[in-house]
């Protein structure tokens, strides 16, 4: 992982994201002036949180890939901590949870030293086998299967999947001559978050037919399709500046991110519904918890990574 400043298209991309935030802030300001009677506090908090999140990510990307990987590792830690705090756990498994947390620095260390072989098997093979071993030490068989399953699901989702976003930075720069590895990360995160907003806006404007009423009653077919279409179009437009994806590859990347983002979102909704909570936490004002913000990324990151990896590396 070389220490170099991100290439110009990445800086332009970051500038573009800030431009979108400026426009959004102006729109919200105009709305509050035009309709003083309505309460826009939730929307304001949400935009403010966007400013903070985008700034932190932008600083990490501009500083160095190492800082960006460490930052994503920290996000992974927050998400896993939220998950472990939400789910039922066994008192006897305290030490097992501690080992599960330790997987984060190790996994992001493999990413930092660009050891692909270890990165790709560490959680699905070694942690998968080690946690049950650690659980045997507790000698408690009550709830063994549920605990083994739920702990590993957390590691796969919060550490392994999110780690894929970080591994984009460990890919060799010559695979993406236009914008380097940071270009791929920016492309993935921007389109994933943009897709969330696009599906929400399409759903608000034209939503009629519920798509998964049992899990997420606000999600509609119109929102889903409109969001995917917008994301696909945007992917096709910006891919030449940030990624090595050419011709049909760019819109397909948009389709993958649009659909996978939806599935990730609904999967975390199903988890929250199962646990009887509305938000996964309260760390991000206007958004909820960390998991509420990166739910889509848990699906888009591994799928986008392996798509690009297969085509270009």
């Amino acid at each position: 992982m070389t220490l170099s400043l991100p290439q110009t298209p990445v800086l332009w991309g970051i500038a573009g994201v800030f431009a979108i935030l400026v426009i959004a802030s102006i729109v919200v300001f105009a709305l509050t002036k035009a309709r003083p009677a309505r309460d826009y506090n939730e929307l304001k908090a949400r935009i403010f949180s966007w400013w903070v999140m985008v700034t932190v990510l932008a600083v990490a990307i501009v500083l160095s890939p190492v800082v960006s990987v460490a930052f994503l590792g920290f996000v992974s830690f927050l998400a896993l901590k939220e998950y472990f705090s939400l789910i039922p756990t066994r008192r006897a498994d305290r030490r097992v949870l501690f080992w599960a947390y330790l997987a984060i620095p190790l996994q992001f260390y493999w990413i930092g030293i660009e050891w692909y072989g270890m990165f790709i098997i560490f959680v699905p093979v070694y942690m998968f086998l080690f946690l049950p071993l650690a659980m045997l030490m507790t000698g408690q068989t009550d709830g063994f299967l549920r605990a083994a399953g739920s702990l590993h699901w957390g590691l796969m989702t919060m550490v392994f999947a999110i780690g894929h976003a970080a591994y984009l930075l460990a890919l060799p720069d010559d695979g993406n001559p236009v914008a380097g590895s940071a270009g791929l990360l920016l492309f993935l995160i921007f389109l994933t978050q943009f897709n969330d907003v696009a599906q929400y806006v399409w759903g608000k404007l034209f939503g009629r037919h519920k798509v998964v009423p049992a899990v997420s009653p606000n999600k509609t077919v119109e929102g889903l399709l409109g969001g995917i279409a917008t994301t696909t179009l945007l992917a096709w437009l910006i891919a030449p500046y940030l990624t090595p994806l050419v011709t049909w590859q760019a819109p397909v990347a948009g389709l993958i991110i649009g659909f996978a983002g939806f599935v990730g979102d609904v999967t975390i909704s199903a988890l929250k519904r199962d646990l009887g909570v509305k938000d996964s936490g309260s760390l991000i004002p206007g958004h909820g918890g960390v998991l509420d913000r990166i739910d889509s990324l848990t699906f888009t990151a591994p799928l986008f990574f392996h798509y690009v990896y297969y085509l270009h590396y």
Partner: protein
Amino acid sequence: MVTPNHFLRFLFFLLVVRPLVLVVLGLNVRHRERLPAAGPAIVAANHNSHLDTMVLMSLFPLSLLPRLRPVAAADYFLRNRIMAWFATRIIGIIPLKRAVHASGGDPLAEPTEALARGDILILFPEGSRGDPEHMEGFKTGIAHLAKRRAEAAIVPVFLHGLGKALPRGTFLLVPFFCDVFVGEAMAWSGDRASFMAELEKREMDLAAEGRFPAWE
């Protein structure tokens, strides 16, 4: 009476306690605005972990740190010289003798004085950490204090999750987001039984605000 070392205490809370509480643990605080902005006051919380004191002290601005005094068991925290130094100089505890039959004297003299000076006491009416994530009956020491300094606001706080993160009998800290629910301030009611009943009821009501995952 041993006074805390304000400089070391400030550094310890700024550089160790706050990062630990806010980054390693992480708090969901409800009704933060109900915390007392000035003393005299007693913050009364349920007790499951050594972290309870650290979390409660982190809720206040650092400028109030010199005013914050946890009331803690003398037999436990003064059991050796290093622990006693750390507890009284850095954490700034007011030691309380839990067993008071023989020696005579007023065990509540120091906390009463602290309240008279306008301090904010942190007190665990359960008396000890007990079984993790289980609330035990409240001891009545807090009622004596409330009666003696009736001007002090009594603020009930319910803590959840710290007994999971660092229960009694272990040094291994496992990160969990923890919940802190602050109740509305109450005052001395004029009668010990009704005061204790009211305090316990408020604590139970706060506990009922949350929905906590099973942990057995």
